[in-house]
């Protein structure tokens, strides 16, 4: 993390474990001596709305809870159309994206009010709005583990493997046990390892 401040957006749909992911990332970085500020837009967190957390990381000072437009260094998206939404406002040619490719259809789409974009075109757009984009079938892998919400940890694993977040298994285990019950640590570590594998093997 050589840029200071380093601006990270975690985004997705309410109920995907967005807020927890930003808390875990923030917690890991605080332990490493960074000053971290998290600004959350989670009023609709349980109800299918767009959710976005700004994580601002600095060695020098405590930054404000929201980043200026066009200043995201990293976008971690649990849903692809949410990645596009965030990039449109906070992206720049240097932004790196880590994206779960599984769409969550808005009720506006389900009810016929709007079409969901063609997935290939959507991923192309994310790619062209990013310096580099990592696309992962994180929900599918999480479902194999038995719970789709683990997609958030799969993405954290991918961040680690891609060199975007320095975090060891032990650090992750400790921070997960702070936020969740101890019996959840093992399954979360598995999800983390799967995320690492996916980036390592390019799947």
């Amino acid at each position, binding site marked *: 993390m050589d840029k200071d401040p380093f601006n990270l957006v975690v985004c997705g*749909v309410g*109920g995907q474990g967005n807020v927890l992911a930003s808390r875990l990332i923030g917690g890991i970085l605080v332990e490493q001596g960074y000053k971290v*500020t998290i600004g959350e837009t989670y009023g*609709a967190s*349980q*109800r*299918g*709305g*767009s959710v976005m957390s700004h994580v601002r990381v600095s060695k020098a*000072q*405590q*930054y*404000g*809870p*929201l*980043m*200026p*437009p*066009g200043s995201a260094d990293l976008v971690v998206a649990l849903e692809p*159309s*949410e990645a*596009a*939404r965030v*990039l*449109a*406002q906070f*992206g*720049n*040619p240097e932004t790196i994206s880590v994206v779960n490719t599984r769409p969550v259809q*808005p*009720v*506006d*789409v389900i*009810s016929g*009010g*709007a*079409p*969901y*974009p063609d997935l290939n*075109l*959507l991923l192309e*757009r994310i790619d*062209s*709005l990013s310096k580099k984009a990592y696309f992962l079938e994180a929900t599918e892998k999480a479902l194999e583990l038995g719970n789709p919400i683990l997609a958030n940890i799969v993405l954290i694993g991918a961040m680690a493997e891609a060199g975007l977040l320095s975090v060891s298994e032990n650090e992750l285990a400790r921070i997960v046990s702070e936020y969740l019950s101890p019996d959840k640590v093992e399954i979360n570590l598995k999800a983390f390892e799967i995320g690492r594998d996916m980036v390592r093997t390019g799947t």
Partner: protein
Amino acid sequence: MTLGPLTDFRPTPHFDTSQILSALPASVTHPIAHAKLKLAGEILAESSFNCYQGPVRQELLIITCGSGWLFAIEAIKLLGLESRVGLLKIGTTWPLPERMLLEHLAKTERVLFLEEVDPVLENNVKELFAHHNESLPHIDFLGKKSGTVPDVGELGPALAIRVISELTGTSLPAPDPAYVRLAQTEVERFSPARSLAFCPGCPHRASFWAIKRALALDGRDGVVFGDIGCYGLAVLGTGFHQSKTLHAMGSGIGMACGFGKLDRFGGTQPSIAVCGDSTFYHAAIPALINGLHHRSNFLLLLLDNSATAMTGFQPHPGSSVDAMGRQAPPVVLEDLCRSLGVRTEIRDPFETEDAANTIYEMLQQEGPKRYKVSIDPDKCIGEDCGCNRLCTRVFRCPGLNWDSVLKKSGIDEAICVGCGVCADICPRGAIIKESA
């Protein structure tokens, strides 16, 4: 900084009964409160929560508090204005640190206020200026009142950068135009709107479906008064736009109670309140009691999902665990309602047809009514009746009177409240009640 061990400080609860803690009488406590406020002002004048950073003389002084301070710091840094713009952060917004403010106002001609929501700092600093204007320079005050900062919406870094750059004639390096063009093209196509919706499987969706069906069957354009909780979303499409009001917690029953009294002015629309279990325990029980007491005609639908769902499934007084996770005696919703003497039915919203039919049936039930009560002088034969003047001598309602000349009962219109019970007890049917 090194933190030492925490001391094991466990005070024993004790109320010093030689003292009285009361705001009354105001004649005694009001001067004390003012003296405390003055003392607080003196203490806060020295507080390090208030601080200035910037040049000795600045072309623009930003007076700010809260998140506005963080946004301003970032904007000044990004725009390279450290030597031109001063930043006065007020951490103790009331009472204001007056001496500090006056020192800085004496050295500036332009002030920008950055604060969330209402212009509180802006108004109070301007008032302070008005008191000292003879010893201060002319100052342009810029903020929400001058239209420099929008008076609606949230502050944010983008807004702070825009306002400060306009006032100082500076700008950020332009973003890559090709990127901006691509990013701003067809945003809605790639990011379709994501309206709020009840979670899949949420009982509220079923409840509002049943309400919608019952109101359609009823056909009298019934009005649903909403309340605070996930079901507040029923003003939106996810609840089929069934709720028509959404205000403070507990307001739904209060409004339904008022609306349920309008039948005497010719109102015919059924009045319905929806309220979640947690909101009911927290804020709606007094409104229900008030509604019953005032004989308002409304139907209360308690949408009980056994949790404070909206904020994360915290327990409430209906739960069998308390806030610390210990076993606790639950207060049972339906028992509480029945104890008030109100007809209470329990239905499962997932049995939608049954729920809808019950709502419909309960809407047909006549609520407590007010009648216009009168006595038919031809039917009332007074002492000759053999009823022993049941209404006046036995039932003894003060709304009745006895005409000693005509020797018949009468209604005192000034006193009768129209409950209509006397009409039901008169053996000759001489007391007439008509819907008011």
